[in-house]
């Protein structure tokens, strides 16, 4: 997979260090990353025409309007997973799924878990693209 063909992941994180670690990890796994730290940048990313395979949204540090952006992704049928701190994850889970999240993970998560989820999404996405319904 060359870098131009690599799936593009939208990484949303208010914490710069978290975002750096996520970008570092995703890059090592061969993904391209669109990293944003604010809701404005999030809006711009969703409005752009580039194809995004999946979004990883860490809701910590954002206000309630983050859910409007999540609804936006659901309408665009952009799969995403939500990351939340351990003590808020239980409360967020229900809300996250209602807003269309495929997964809600508590932080800290493991690289192995994140890798499995992302690989699963991107494989599924590749298969859907190459699906030939036949004559």
């Amino acid at each position, binding site marked *: 997979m060359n870098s131009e063909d690599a799936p593009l992941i939208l990484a949303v*994180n208010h*914490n*710069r*260090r*978290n975002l750096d*670690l*996520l970008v570092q*990890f995703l890059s090592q796994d061969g993904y391209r990353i669109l990293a944003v730290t604010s809701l404005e940048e999030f809006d711009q990313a969703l409005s752009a025409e580039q194809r995004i395979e999946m979004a990883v949204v*860490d809701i*910590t540090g954002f206000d309630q309007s983050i859910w409007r952006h999540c609804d936006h992704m659901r309408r665009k049928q952009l799969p995403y997973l939500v*990351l939340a*701190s351990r003590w808020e994850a239980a409360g967020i889970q229900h809300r996250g799924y209602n807003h269309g999240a495929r997964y809600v993970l508590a*932080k*800290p*998560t*493991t*690289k192995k878990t994140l890798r499995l989820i992302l690989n699963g999404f991107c494989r599924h996405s590749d298969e859907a693209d190459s699906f030939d319904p036949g004559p």
Partner: protein
Amino acid sequence: MEDNVANFTERTEAQTERLSTGVPGLGEILGGGFISQRAYLVRGAPGTGKTILGLHFLTAGALQGEPCLFVTLGETEEQIRNNAASLGYSLNGISFLDLSPAPEFFTEDQSYDIFHPAEVEREPITRKIIEKVEEIRPTRVFLDALTQFRYLSTDSLEFHKQAFSFLRYLSESGATVVFTSDSSQQAPDDDLQFMCDGIIQLECNDMERSLCVTKMRGSSFRMGHHSFRLTTRGMEVSPVLVPDLQREGLAPIFTGELTASGIAELDALLHGGLDRGTTTVLTGPSGVGKTTVGMQFMKASASRQEKAVVYIFEEGLESLLRRCEAINLAVRPLIESQNLSVVPIEPLSFTADEFSSLVCRDVEQSNARIVMIDSVAGYRMSLRGKDLISHLHALTRFLKSKGVSTILINELKSLSGDFHISEIGISYLADDIIFLRYLELNGELRKAIGVIKKRVGDFEKTLREVQITPDGLKLSEPLTRLRGLLSSQIQLTWPEGGFNEF
């Protein structure tokens, strides 16, 4: 068979390369020092001196030109250097690997929670350690504190494997490792205790600091709680004195040599004097003249150029010297000529182990021939509740092994009544027992001296009256007409007048 085993153990221990701990007294407890390329755990609550012990260990190596490495995961290098400088340590020749968190870590930009620290930090920290070890090839590593690595592991099994392999890596790289742990009820360090080769436990209470060794693979060590001090010179340990007759060849030997008091009547009472290398308990109630009689022996020895050392727990030096001068016991010139030492001891400032170490050092350095401890009650205070008999036994046994005569001054609480040698059970330690007691005769309070036990040789079975006069100690002829000596009712038989005459 047992001898063969003992000889084998001694041989193997002697062949093992030992590293100096750098802490005075600690090597003696560890059987010579740390065994090379092993890992030792230093445990203890905050403030007990773990880091200071580590600094001693590294500076001892640096002084010999060994490459030494301090790996810190808690305090910063700067803090450690500042603290060491304030204690007068030179850290020249010691390399640092500072893995403590930088202040930026706590700002938003550096703090993170997306992944476990084990996944983020372990790899760069491991890389830094390996780079440093490869760079300087240390023979001594001090790691403060290994338990910090626990936070770089996702579970206890992983921590165990990480810590074990890390210690093994250092050891195989040629390093002897001393590491600390911050243990608590919530995060015990039992796993580290299992994997290390030796454990030194540091303790501190409101009375004293002490350490004990609970594990030492491949080596014997001295059991017990050994008191230590943290001074401006760092850590100083006073090992518990334990007689070791087999190893040191300390079997008591009575030479037959006598230590005379210089007073004919007193020496006659003892059939010549105290036997060299024996322990004498000089017992009696308050004010009866025990110290005076003891000082008479000390003065006589010092006058014969035999080094004498007196430890006084209950009065100051000047007070004792004045009392001696008031009865024509000229000890000051003997102090000036260094044949006599009088060492005041404040029992609340000295632990029993520190006192024992002091006595051992004094005796070995000055080649003392006679020692007096005035009094057992003062010495007992320095024990702070510990067992008097075992400590005193070890001390007198050591002195005996060096051929030193020992006089223990023992005070009885009661002025009169039925006869007691001691109220604290020390008579078993005594080779000789000299007692002083009050007598009420003809309406006067008088004092008498007698001998009740002399392990080597004979002695007078009668009492003599003793008087402390401006001209010195005076003893009467034997009081052959006293009856009821061991009861509260001493009676004088005929004739009365003879008793008054010396």
